[in-house]
């Protein structure tokens, strides 16, 4: 029996997810331009695997398969997880990443809309803990040609020593550990570019452009990216102002690692994130703070993934405590 409303806006989950995929394209283009087409191989692999796993799990759960595959949510998860891990990981790492994110982090909790944790970040964290070496091999900009990348992806786990350079965040962390100042670390390493890591600053710009598409199409609201960027800039800027020899600049923090991907595509996952306007601000700012703390003082070069998972845990509390006032109940309501 159908009841009112009888008319609906032509909107669908598929359209939302499709917009996200389109918005990822500028960043992806920059990625290919700077680091070679190897990422496309993993991306294709991840997408096919995601669809296959989604279909398999839905069948096992006796749920409609076509609807779930058609909504493109699995492909979005696959893209995000592949873009978060190094582009030259062996094919089975990609496969594992997709299995963990979709099979475990999403469907074990009840499928789309039910997962408390960001699936892509669950997979990232699991893999960086399980395969720290493979997950830290990032190619430098323009360092590897497509054949070499293909060889690394399909040839199994090999140490591509001498071909990959440490990323900017990694180099900074190692440099600081050895007692050098930020300036000397920067000047002595080819990993650093104009703002962030060499080449990565372009990718970051591409993601930011995609983020504007998402904002323009109202797939995301300004709260999450704004709070994330502002918090990262403020906290890193504060320490940078206090001691620029020991702390990198806010610009460096924003342009390196996964900061822009996170700001517009990772922390904006609606399912596992906060939903109220104030809650979104707290949620994204919390992630930025944790990410900066781990970058500056932790054992891992980047901490966004851990920040996301830690803040995911807080979402029910954040949402509960930040319910916006209801029509007619403004003022007296908390």
């Amino acid at each position: 029996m159908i009841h009112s409303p009888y008319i609906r806006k032509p909107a669908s989950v598929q359209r939302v997810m499709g917009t996200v995929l389109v918005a990822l394209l500028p960043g992806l283009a920059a990625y290919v331009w700077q680091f070679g087409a190897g990422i496309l191989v993993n991306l294709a692999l991840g997408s096919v695997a995601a669809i296959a796993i989604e279909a398999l799990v839905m069948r096992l759960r006796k749920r409609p398969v076509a609807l779930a595959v058609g909504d493109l949510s699995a492909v979005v998860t696959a893209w995000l997880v592949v873009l978060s891990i190094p582009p030259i990981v062996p094919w089975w790492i990609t496969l594992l990443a997709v299995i963990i994110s979709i099979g475990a982090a999403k469907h074990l909790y009840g499928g789309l809309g039910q997962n408390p944790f960001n699936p892509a970040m669950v997979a990232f964290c699991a893999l960086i803990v399980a395969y720290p070496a493979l997950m830290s091999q990032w190619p430098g900009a323009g360092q590897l040609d497509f054949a070499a990348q293909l060889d690394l992806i399909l040839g199994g786990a090999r140490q591509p020593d001498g071909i990959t350079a440490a990323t900017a965040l990694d180099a900074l962390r190692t440099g600081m550990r050895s007692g050098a100042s930020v300036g000397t670390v920067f000047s002595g390493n080819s990993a650093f570019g104009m703002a962030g890591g060499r080449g990565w600053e372009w990718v970051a710009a591409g993601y930011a452009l995609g983020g504007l598409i998402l904002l323009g199409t109202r797939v995301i609201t300004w709260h999450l990216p704004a709070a994330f960027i502002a918090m990262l800039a403020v906290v890193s800027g504060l320490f940078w102002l206090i001691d620029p020899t020991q702390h990198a600049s806010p610009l460096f923090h924003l342009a390196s690692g996964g900061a822009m991907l996170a700001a517009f595509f990772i922390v904006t996952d609606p399912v596992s994130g906060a939903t109220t306007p104030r809650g979104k601000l707290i949620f994204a700012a919390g992630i930025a703070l944790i990410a900066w703390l781990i970058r500056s003082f932790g054992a891992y070069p980047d901490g966004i993934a851990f920040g996301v998972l830690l803040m995911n845990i807080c979402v029910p509390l954040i949402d509960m405590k930040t319910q916006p006032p209801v029509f007619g109940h403004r003022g007296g309501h908390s």
Partner: protein
Amino acid sequence: MLSALLVMTGIAIVLGAALGYAAIRFKVEGDPLVEKIDAILPQTQCGQCGYPGCKPYAEAIAQGAAEINQCPPGGEEGIRKLADLLGREFKPLSEEHGVEKPKSVAVIDEQTCIGCTLCIQACPVDAIVGAAKQMHTVVDKLCTGCELCVAPCPVDCITMTPIPETVENWKWKYPVVELRRVA
């Protein structure tokens, strides 16, 4: 070593005092469990559970003397609520105590009624009006549907009539999620 012991002892004394104070300060009056159980029971006072009314049954449950599945008017939902409240396992309604029926009220056939007052005496909630030798009638707003008046009637003029659905008590149905249709 000694200082550690002293510190631990000190902590124990402070915490103990705090707990003791809390126990006095926040003392719970009466037996709220019985009240809570009683609030879940449907208050038909029908005695199908084997106790003379809902309150005695609630007391029996609280003491562990009775099972939670002896109340047919409360039905499965009532048992679930009791199971939730008491942290016990859900059990299907015990058959010896009766079956769940649609909510009904007693109706007296006024042509047959001889005015014997037996039903008036049986009604646990005084929902039947009438006097000796006068026709009786059930105030259906007050009737709990306990059926206690049915057996005493010497002329069998009382029937249980299910409460009809009207625009006032009609309920919107739970939206059906059609998962299989698209499978």
